[in-house]
């Protein structure tokens, strides 16, 4: 139970962080490599305060990390923090795939009956 609650917190945090469309866009860009804020601003065409606000949320849950490079701060995606969501989606997909594979068999039977 404790383990499950611990996982709930991580999953929910990452879920919330990536639920916002703009934040997903930021992650899409960062998936291509490290970026400075001004590069994100240019690439997304969004005001800098907005980008900074979303970066704060993403950093808070660990989905995005930052490092200093001289006077610049470079942001990068941390795939590990997205793992809880990835794992859950994959498990959910497995359940539905197993259902649908069985449903294929049911449909094949129905088709055979119809053809008769």
């Amino acid at each position, binding site marked *: 139970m404790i383990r*499950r609650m611990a*996982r*709930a917190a991580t*999953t*929910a945090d990452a*879920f*919330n962080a*990536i*639920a*916002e469309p703009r934040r997903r866009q930021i992650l899409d860009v960062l998936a291509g490599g490290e970026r400075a804020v001004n590069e994100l601003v240019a690439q997304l065409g969004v005001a800098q305060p907005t980008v900074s606000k979303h970066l704060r949320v993403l950093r808070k849950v660990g989905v995005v990390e930052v490092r200093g490079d001289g006077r610049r701060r470079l942001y990068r995606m941390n795939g590990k923090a997205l793992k809880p*969501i990835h*794992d*859950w*989606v*994959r*498990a*959910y*997909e*497995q*359940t*539905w*795939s*197993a*259902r*649908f*594979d*069985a*449903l*294929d*068999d*049911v*449909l*094949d039977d*129905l*088709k055979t009956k*119809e053809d008769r």
Partner: protein
Amino acid sequence: MTTDSRKAKVTLPSDRQILITREFDAPKELVWKAWTTPELVRRWWHANRGEMTVCEIDLRVGGKWRYAMEAPGFGEVAFHGEYREIEPFERLVSTEAYEGIPDADAHAAVDTLTLAEIGDHTLMTVLVEHPTMEGRDMHVESGMEDGMQDAMDLLEETVAALA
């Protein structure tokens, strides 16, 4: 199940929605029949995780449904809900409550099944919408997925150990 369209695809369109899509090599009338006929649902809903012990479908607006299965090592997993909208062969809207959480009905999701024929195939989409973030988180954390994840972790470890 070699092509992508034959694999169930799960996406998260917004923070309270889960979207499942899958193509079937059958007309939508047959997919509908397999989805709404208890004897047929019993043959696929278990996802090879156990045996369905209850499959009740009262297919009319306001009618109730209840599915339960006995999963080895997990016990009973049960869901129930009510039909909201029925457009035969095309669209089915119903609520879905997972009985394993407290106050299940308050956190019930709304599921929308749509079937669209593309040539001789049927594209199925199932949109699961949670009324609350809490409901979604509980869905995410509930039931079989958790147990399945453990099983998959175990499988991965086993495979890794063999490599």
